[in-house]
């Protein structure tokens, strides 16, 4: 079994979601199981049937960064959502919502995007992370 990777996905900006999705897809491609824990604004981005959101980027992006991201999207870059869906197709990717963040955002299980596999607490996250690497994004 290849070394598992655990990701706490805290950020809900499109650039960090994209980075997390690409890292997940690459890990899945090389056979590493990935466990994603959605916290705070990361979870907020996984609302089911959410209204199309304005594209949000990390503050350091600035107007030029936004233009570059828009240009790549227009050129056909897969969305972070599609990339995560592909990662789930080719590998072992488990996406769990943080129960505390569910309370914070007043969300129930039915409010979540179908990519989300379930809801768990932080202890379950650390048990799943086991001895593998942990990323905070």
């Amino acid at each position, binding site marked *: 079994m290849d070394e598992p990777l655990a990701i706490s996905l805290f950020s809900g900006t499109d650039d960090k979601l994209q980075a997390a999705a690409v890292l997940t897809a690459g890990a899945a*491609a090389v056979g590493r199981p990935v466990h994603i824990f959605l916290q705070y604004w990361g979870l907020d981005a996984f609302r089911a049937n959410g209204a199309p959101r304005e594209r949000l980027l990390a503050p350091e992006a600035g107007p030029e960064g936004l233009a570059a991201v828009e240009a*790549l999207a227009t050129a*056909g*870059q*897969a969305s972070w959502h599609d*990339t995560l869906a*592909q990662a789930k197709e080719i590998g072992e990717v488990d996406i769990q919502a943080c129960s505390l963040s569910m309370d914070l955002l007043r969300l129930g299980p039915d409010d979540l995007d179908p990519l989300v596999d379930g809801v768990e607490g932080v202890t379950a996250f650390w048990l799943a992370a086991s001895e593998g690497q942990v990323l905070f994004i």
Partner: protein
Amino acid sequence: MIQTDTHAITRTIDARGSYCPGPLMELIRAIREGSAGDVIAVHSSDNGSRIDIPKWVEKAGHRLIGVTQRDGYDEIVVEQQR
């Protein structure tokens, strides 16, 4: 220069316009659907995939037949081993 004519390509994936890691995702899907002996050509215009796909092929135990620069894209040919 590789001799792709000695390896009959059984499937071609047009991943041009797809960005990292899209072409690899499509190759993996094709390998899942295929079987040992299939020869898959991936057409990719993504710079990262030119480096990543050969590394993945080695790690996954398949065989890289070659990477050829075509007009505005790379043709990466892989023989599925299992």
